[in-house]
């Protein structure tokens, strides 16, 4: 297989720009998604049937439909309603945040439920109310357990952000496709993109492993 380095060299600045946006999108996505996931996760756990039902629908919808369709819906349906016109970056961030929120809600719920029941009972038996117990006793412990799955979600988000290219958000995959369609060559751009994704995801999971080990020994 011939492999044309020259066209890759030509695209280096674009790949760089794209990679930065890829990182930015996933980073913002995981941050907003975490806040959202917290709200949705708590919402699903409340005794209020209606709130719990709505939160559950949210989770079911975002986990049950392809991201591709979600991005289109948000890009052409939601963002114009919000800011009057489409904007690929805004749409990608919203879509990634919303889907991350759905997964993080479950991570969050699992994290809370993984804390021994005795912790809540001990806090309540001291006279602390439910909110105080959550805040001072349950959540700090749950958050620590959530770090590894949150990291995984970040990795997933990095890969999924590649779908942002379909609404012309100029991230890594967008420039990969631009190169592909300029030269009608597939391997150079896509293998390069794959390699960059691989570097991003493996270095992230390396960092995660170290963090996890640090947390475990603490």
């Amino acid at each position, binding site marked *: 297989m011939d492999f044309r380095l020259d066209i890759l060299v030509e695209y280096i600045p674009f790949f760089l720009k794209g990679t930065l946006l890829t990182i930015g999108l996933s980073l913002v996505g995981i941050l907003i998604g975490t806040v959202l996931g917290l709200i949705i996760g708590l919402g699903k756990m409340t005794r209020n049937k209606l709130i719990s039902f709505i939160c559950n629908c949210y989770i079911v919808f975002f986990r049950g439909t392809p991201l591709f369709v979600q991005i289109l819906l948000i890009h052409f349906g939601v963002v114009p309603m919000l800011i009057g016109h489409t904007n690929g970056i805004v749409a990608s961030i919203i879509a990634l945040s919303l889907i991350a929120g759905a997964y993080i809600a479950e991570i969050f719920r699992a994290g809370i439920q993984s804390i021994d029941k*005795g912790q809540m009972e001990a806090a309540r038996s*001291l006279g602390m109310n439910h909110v105080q117990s959550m805040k001072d006793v349950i959540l700090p412990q749950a958050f620590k357990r959530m770090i590894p799955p949150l990291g995984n979600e970040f990795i997933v988000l990095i890969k999924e952000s590649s779908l942002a290219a379909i609404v012309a958000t100029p991230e890594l995959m967008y420039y990969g496709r631009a190169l592909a369609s300029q030269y009608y060559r597939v391997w150079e751009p896509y293998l390069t993109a794959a390699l960059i994704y691989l570097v991003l995801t493996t270095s992230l999971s390396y960092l995660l492993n170290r963090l996890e080990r640090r947390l475990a020994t603490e």
Partner: protein
Amino acid sequence: MIEVKNLKKTFGSNEVLKDINALISPKEVVVVIGPSGSGKSTFLRCLNLLESITAGHVSIEGVDITDKKTDINKVRTEVGMVFQQFNLFPHKTVIENIILAPMRIRKLSAEKARERGLELLRKVGLKEKADAYPDSLSGGQKQRVAIARALAMEPKIMLFDEPTSALDPEMVGEVLEVMKQLALEGMTMVVVTHEMGFAREVGDRVLFMDGGYIVEENIPKELFENPQQDRTKSFLSKVL
């Protein structure tokens, strides 16, 4: 004072407490014994509403805690509880475990709370462990911290649910010692335990539970040496 009248508790279709009646006076130390599954823990947990009560009434210091209008968090500050599994907060140091509730609920300042916390740690013999994390403590030390934590809210009553049964044998003594001290100081205590020596030495009264009822009760010496009911006899024959 604790008054329990016709207390019933069911989990789903499983009637765990069938008809419990008891009167526990101030400064009394009541030991609860009985076979596994007889409802001892459930009974104890009903006393501070960690389990919702299905029927009947429980009043603590004259306050009916089954009444919907009662502020249960307030009641719980009067009733300390110590669990078999310690349930210390692993993300907080020993002293932080102790001062958390006083600061949150009694709104004590950090210094004041810490001062009183250290006093309690001294009492349970763990002053030097104030800034350690629970994971670095032995079982006996953990349980003593748990007792100090419960005492920090200055409860009028203390509930103990098998406080020594998760401990290595050589640590049982140090925990029982702290409990004995507490009893001597006049704390009202309800203790579920299999430590018959403690019951004999410290208990004012022993309740024997079986199948959701209090089958027999008496002063320790009488109950252990002269059980009236067959079930009590058969249980004691296995345990003593």
